[in-house]
């Protein structure tokens, strides 16, 4: 029986010291153990490219419900795209694409692009910042989470990061953001899993080692952080540079460097994947979708202007990237997804623009997408009030959950653990978890989890089971604001299996975290209190 299976059983287990995978645990820091600790649960070469469209994209002028044209024109006459200019998609009636999205229309016709209609969340928030945080963290509208869904996914797969990283199994950054900022989406429960690079060739050796010990103060905490970034920059910078040198771009579709910043970013992504980087997540972005004013020009065709240019850039960049990926023979490994913090209002304003709205379509791209359009066109009323918004058809977290399940090959319980809730799954992707590139059942590693709880979600109490390698054990419970609310174990524990019960008598429902520490081994996991 594999250890994870063992931990999953509900049978009370003996407190005898156990051997891990038949190997006695001799000492902390044992290289063999460290190696196992740093392996991923699921061995996959799949890559997800997230394209963030900052500002809130006007979905109604992107994927245009032409069957609603008459009512839509009443609501937004000053920015309405002429019906004759709307791009028709093969086999689709009543829905078209913005005229500047010719490249993405071709991708759709070639079954490499799919559309999910009406993606949003209940009780939408109209603040850019809140809504961006909600999309990145995958929280409910009234929850304030600080970890991102990608960060939690990577934390699930590599629970000890950054300790022991990089290593031979995962020599590369877990997630890369092209640019100089690391998105919240990559923020894990205890560390940010992302790394920013603006130029793969810009590796610059930093001074590390020979440290003065840090004091246990705020200043010490920040110094530890800076040193960790320096260490990782050195370790990963070289790996990225090497991949950049080995990698190449083959597509001739990329625009001239500097003309389309999104294409420039995606070009680097393709180069790094082709150079052998094992990084699983890439984050790129395109800014400028907050089109309150002059979304279309004051004079001239409404199919031109600011929004048209943005969509043209998006379309051109994604198409060039997909072409490149295919020419490089990487198409089975790469999936892309766009997202934006919200759509825009149905009714346009007098500034030739649109205010913050709610649900909007989302794109998936790659050869593994199930082609077509998921969902229906929104129904536009005959008379639309200023504050009317599109209702959501699909929760964005269902999209994430489906990607985790069908692209990163997690089991349902693991998806829930990453998403911190159960979300409906959607038929977005072809089955890619039984391909040769990922053999879920066989390659699933065992033996990494030192701590787990059952049941989860729980109501009155939950049992936390953990393994000690001998020595001091600390188990703390945090609330979602990262405050310690209870210390369950803080003592020497003999090597072996142990358990402790966490009672949630007076606590509010929500997500809590338990953190396990045994010497240098630290793991933090979420648990959900449901009432």
């Amino acid at each position, binding site marked *: 029986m594999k250890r994870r299976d063992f931990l999953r059983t509900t049978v009370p287990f003996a407190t005898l010291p156990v051997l891990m995978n038949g190997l006695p645990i001799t000492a902390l820091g044992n290289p063999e153990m460290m190696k196992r600790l740093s392996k991923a649960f699921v061995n996959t070469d799949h890559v997800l490219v997230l394209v963030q469209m900052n500002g809130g994209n006007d979905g109604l002028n992107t994927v245009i419900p032409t069957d609603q044209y008459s009512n839509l024109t009443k609501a937004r006459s000053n920015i309405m795209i002429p019906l004759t200019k709307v791009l028709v998609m093969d086999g689709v009636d009543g829905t078209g694409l913005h005229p500047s999205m010719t490249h993405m229309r071709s991708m759709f016709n070639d079954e490499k692009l799919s559309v999910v209609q009406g993606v949003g969340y209940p009780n939408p928030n109209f603040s850019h910042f809140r809504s961006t945080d909600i999309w990145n963290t995958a929280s409910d509208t009234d929850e304030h989470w600080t970890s991102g869904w990608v960060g939690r996914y990577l934390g699930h797969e590599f629970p000890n990061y950054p300790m022991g990283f990089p290593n031979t199994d995962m020599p590369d950054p877990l997630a890369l953001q092209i640019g*100089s900022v690391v998105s919240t989406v990559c923020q894990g429960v205890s560390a*940010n899993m992302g790394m920013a690079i603006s130029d793969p060739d810009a590796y610059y050796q930093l001074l590390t080692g020979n440290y003065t010990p840090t*004091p246990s103060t705020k200043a010490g905490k920040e110094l530890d952080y800076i040193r960790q970034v320096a260490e990782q920059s050195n370790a990963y910078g070289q790996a990225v540079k090497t991949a950049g040198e080995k990698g190449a771009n083959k597509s001739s579709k990329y625009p001239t460097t500097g003309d389309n910043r999104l294409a420039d970013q995606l070009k680097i992504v393709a180069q790094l994947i082709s150079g052998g980087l094992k990084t699983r997540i890439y984050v790129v972005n395109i800014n400028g979708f907050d089109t309150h004013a002059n979304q279309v020009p004051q004079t001239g065709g409404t199919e031109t202007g600011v929004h048209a240019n943005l969509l043209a850039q998006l379309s051109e960049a994604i198409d060039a990237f997909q072409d490149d990926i295919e020419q490089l023979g990487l198409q089975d490994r790469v999936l892309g997804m766009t997202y934006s913090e919200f759509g825009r209002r149905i009714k346009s304003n007098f500034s030739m623009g649109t205010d913050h709205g709610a649900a909007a379509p989302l794109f998936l791209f790659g050869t593994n997408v199930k082609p077509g359009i998921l969902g229906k066109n929104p129904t536009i009323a005959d008379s639309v009030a200023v504050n009317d918004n599109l209702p959501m058809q699909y929760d964005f977290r269902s999209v994430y959950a489906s990607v985790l399940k069908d692209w990163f090959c997690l089991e349902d319980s693991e998806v829930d653990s990453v998403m911190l809730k159960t979300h409906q799954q959607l038929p977005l992707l072809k089955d890619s978890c039984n391909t040769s590139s990922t053999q879920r059942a066989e390659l699933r590693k065992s033996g990494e989890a030192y701590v787990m709880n059952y049941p989860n979600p729980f109501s009155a109490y939950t049992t936390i089971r953990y393994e000690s390698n001998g020595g001091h054990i600390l188990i703390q419970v945090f609330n979602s604001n990262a405050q310690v609310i209870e210390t369950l174990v803080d003592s020497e524990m003999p090597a072996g299996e142990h358990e402790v019960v966490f009672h949630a008598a007076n606590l509010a429902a929500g997500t809590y975290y338990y953190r396990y520490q045994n010497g240098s081994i630290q793991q933090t996991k979420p648990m959900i209190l449901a009432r």
Partner: protein
Amino acid sequence: MITSTQKTARTQSGISPYSGNWGPTEVIHLLRRTLFGATKADIDYYSGKSMSDAVDEILSPSGFTPSPPVNNYNNGRITDPDIALGKTWVNGPYNAALNGARRNSLRAWWVGQMVHQEKTIREKLTLFWHNHFPTELTAIGDPIYGYNYQQLLRENCLGDFKKLVKLITLDPAMLIYLNGSSNTKNAPDENYSRELQELFTLGKGEDSEYTESDVQEAARVLTGWRINRTNYTSYFNPNLHDTGDKTFSTFFGNKVIKGQTGANGADELDELLDMIFNEEEVAKFICRRLYMWFVYYEIDATTETNVIEPLADVFRNNNYQIKPVLETLFKSEHFFDVANQGCLIKSPTDFTVGLMRQFGVEYPDDTDVADQYYFWRLTSDICALQQQNVGEPPNVAGWPAYYQAPQFHEIWINSDTLPKRNQISDIMIAVGVVRNGKKIVIDPIKVAEMFDTPDNASALVDDLLGYLHTLAVSADQKEHMRSFLLSGQAASYWEKAWNDYQADPTNATLKATVNLRLQGLLKYIMNLGEYQLS
């Protein structure tokens, strides 16, 4: 310098006046937080004053108005038909073809004001307000609006916050940036109304419970404000104003702002601001923002109780005057608490402008505006490279380091920006940047000469660390640093090398001997993570 024996974190400290030691450590702490870097001259100056007098003086800008940005762009390719090289363009006339060149002039000049700042808080506070009430120069277009906008912030940086909110609401740059000038009765544009509440006054804290409907009602109050593009002012057009009554949520006590007709419609703004400022949350929110900028990004329950709430009381009791709040904060036990020293990750402007100032890097003067602006612009671009482009914050929330949990200030430092910071300091200590025979570079000999006994390797290392770092380094580290000066020899060799050079400063060989060793030492000090903390 904080040593590891001084760990005792007085986390309970509040805003009671600080009465502890006032030595170099405290002077440097105060100056690093309120200026861009603490220069030797400023440290010496304020060391001669009491803590209270020092804070008072830092909070009392002279009233001197910096001469405005000038035409630095006439270069043969671009020629301004109206304004000569070296003359200011801020009074117009507008010239669409020169928007880009003038914006660059403004961005360069703005960072230039930081480099050449007086020893007061004004420039750092101006940047604080720019982060709080952001606009993006490129989005505004005409840089004359941009200049007026940042002057508004600079002139009001220590004054009446409520007045500042009104001025910003009606500032043409902001009316353009958040579409206030397109907000009319027939199609209210709620962009400014939302940010006025979410970002500028009430924030998004747990106790800020305004509703989506409040955003829409406030947008109606704000209808009718327009821009006069001839004289760069804003004005109220009653015909575009929504004269209906505006009803707010229970959060605002179901307040109704009665719709006014004609010119009286403009007065609704005052009523709106009175209603918002009636909420206690405004003062708390602004005090949290100030705290995160000047002290640290984490505000735990104790700090909220012991610092934020009493500071907010000071703010309200002084009718939203900013200066008394900062005075209370900077004279408080909490501010000088050892636990709050050295924990601020330098922002890109702190790192860059601070570096130039601490090391006495010399810029060309205004007899050579082309080169002067070139180096100011370079300094601005170096900040931008590290993700803080002054005049162009990423969006209306300002820089994420001041709002994005949980990393906050740590966002400034990542695997892209930390190597860049090291490259920048390495370039400045090694070769500098040259243009037209002019050069900005760190002169390490000049730096050593700031201190009393540069011929004593141990003393020099101690002095430099006291000046440039906050956290103490180990004896091993210090020994390693001394070795840059000694090159494996006894201390007397450095002493001799330094004194030989002093006796014959034009001797290139003697100069190179000390210069090379000091370069190595300073490079090392700046490459340590400790240098990133303020």
